[in-house]
């Protein structure tokens, strides 16, 4: 309906079901996204390189190559947000998907509005924030430059991990519940799946902590949530 000539973003849809893929394309176009469909797992990476999307919608069960492997491959090349489409809500599958590098997931059957909200939350980063620089422990966060450095050495974070760290670092006095983090970082309030937070905190810790077993930068507050450590 409200088709803009200038697209809000480019979305690569990797799904083997033609009807669903077409339906996704329709909904995305209505919401102002430009999309391309790839039906095979083994072709996903080349499609990704060619299309240069702002976000990838990735089905987990794909012919040619498993969605988990595709996710890992893309993550090796780029920090582009990846949202998994999954038919399984079992803990193991979701956690495996998130650990392989996905930022978020939606469980089929999903409501189009929900999907679009997630996509928007991941793509909204296109609006640049003001120039700002923060420190947490021995990490320096350059907000405008989307870069984190430790003693001048850059620490490589995906945009989501960067957002998570930034959210915690902006209010080091505050303990964030998982639900608040879901709302502020992932951009939604309902169907609070705290596994999403747990997995990403673990991944972020493995990148920024000196000893991920004894975290000092992202501290767990038992029974409540997480807060930025004072170092």
């Amino acid at each position, binding site marked *: *309906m409200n088709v803009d000539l200038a697209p809000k973003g480019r979305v690569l849809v990797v799904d083997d079901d033609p009807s669903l893929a077409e339906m996704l394309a329709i909904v995305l176009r209505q919401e102002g996204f430009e999309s391309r469909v790839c039906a095979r797992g083994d072709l996903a990476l080349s499609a990704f390189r060619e299309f240069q999307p702002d976000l990838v919608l990735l089905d987990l069960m794909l012919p040619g190559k498993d969605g988990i492997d595709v996710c890992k491959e893309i993550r090796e090349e780029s920090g582009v947000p990846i949202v998994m489409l999954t038919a399984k809500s079992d803990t193991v599958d979701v956690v495996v998907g998130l650990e392989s590098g996905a930022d978020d997931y939606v469980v089929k059957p999903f409501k189009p509005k929900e999907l679009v909200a997630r996509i928007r939350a991941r793509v909204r980063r296109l609006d640049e924030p003001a120039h700002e620089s923060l420190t947490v422990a021995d990490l320096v966060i350059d907000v405008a430059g989307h870069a984190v450095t430790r003693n001048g050495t850059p620490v490589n974070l995906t945009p989501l991990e960067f957002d998570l760290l930034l959210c915690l670092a902006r209010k080091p006095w505050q303990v964030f519940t998982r639900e608040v983090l879901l709302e502020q970082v992932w951009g939604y309030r309902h169907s609070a799946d705290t596994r999403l937070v747990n997995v990403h905190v673990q991944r972020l810790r493995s990148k920024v902590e000196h000893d991920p077993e004894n975290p000092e930068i992202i501290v767990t507050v038992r029974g409540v949530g997480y807060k930025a450590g004072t170092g």
Partner: protein
Amino acid sequence: MADSPRYAGLRRALTFWRRSIQARVVVTTLVLSAVVISAVGWLLLRQTRDGLLDNRVDAVLAESASETLAANTRLTQTPGTDTDVGSQLDDLFDPIKERGAVRGFEVVLAGPVGSGKPLTAGGTRSTPGLAVASVPEALRQHFDVVADPAWSYTTIQVGAAGGDVQQGPGIAVGSQINLKADGETYVLYYLFSLDEENQTLSLVNRALLTAGALLLVLVAALTGIVTRQVVTPIRLARRVAERLAAGELQERVRVSGEDDLARLATSFNQMASSLQRQIRQLEDLSRVQRRFVSDVSHELRTPLTTVRMAGDVLYDARPDFDASTRRAAELLHHELDRFETLLSDLLEISRFDAGAAQLDIDDVNLVDVARRVVDMTRPLAEQRGVQVLIQAPGRLCLAEADVRRVERVVRNLVTNAIDHAESRGVLLQVVCDDHASAIAVRDYGVGLTSGETALVFNRFWRADPARARTSGGTGLGLSISLEDARLHGGWLQAWGRPGEGAQFRLTLPRRAGGRLRQSPIPLVPLDSMDSLDSQELV
């Protein structure tokens, strides 16, 4: 308290006694054989003694008789009347004394009969060193008058001059002799020692004791070995059975031989194999079921997603449609919602049935859960005009649980309560202690009969079939909640009273895997009229 170590030792011994067949068999056999061996030994010893003594007495009597005869012969051969009494007595006594020294007996010559003089008085001749008291008093009295020879047992006391006295068992034989010199009757006592017999007896005694002891050791060893042969396979079987029970289904008893124990082992193994087979079958079934659920889930969800998106696109575009098409789009939209909930509930239930449900354990604050659920259900509560209140302590109420599931349970209870509250208000109570945390959801609506509190958790059960399905619940909500509670090792229980409302209570152990003993919240609410008519279900 000071005695407790001793009692502990006693208790351990008693436990060992109760548990070990081997110990019981060995000890009872040992006690019985000890009794029998002692009886046999005692009889044997008695007979040996009697035989020995009888022999000795016969020999002694014969010897003393022959001595007396020889003495009489000597007396008759000596020319009689001219000799004086003293020398004739010497003639009589000395040869016997000498023979006694050679043959090993002592002699006492006393008399004359009827004088009433004790043996210790003068005129009594005896073997040097022999105490005259060795002749028993009863025997001496026997010869106060003229009598036949007689004998009795005695204790012979021999003392070296001035030295210590040696005592020993012996036999005293007495016989009377007529002395021609004065015509009086004198008594000759022969004292035969029984030392030899005594030694023999003690030897036999020692031999019997040794033999008895050895026999007991033999019996103990034998019963020990025999019971061990029987008990060892039983113990092995027990160990294998324990391992089987612990889930090591491939465990088997080793079979050797063809005896009863081997057959027991064979049957045991057959039982184990059959169990293993059936468990494998069940596991296969469960795996197939799980696989099926997962496949159905995936296969159904993809087309449903497409339909759902298409429906939403149509629903969003409904202002452009004519009235009936618009209504159709609306119906499609609403029914898709219901269909989706029903599908996900069914899949959840079959996941429980297949045993595929897993917990994602974390510290969960039940107060937070209650607040979130109340926030989430606010639109429904406002729509029904129901006020939902939370009563919670001002501190954390933690439980190690899967927050997604706990929230689902509480949401379910609150939605149900709002549904049945009849605009009267709903109270959420959160209470915890060191062992458990609980949430109770109380409504003051139509309530439940005590029979219905057992039925509410049944799948697709409805309080009143004729009642309108207002909130569009699937009828599976409470069944799923009950399974969720059970998965946590917790309780979900219902109380109800027609006209007074109902209370549902979720109790979770503080630590994952902990056992619940009681809930911090009473199942029957304190504000209810009665507290008797209640039913607890786990």
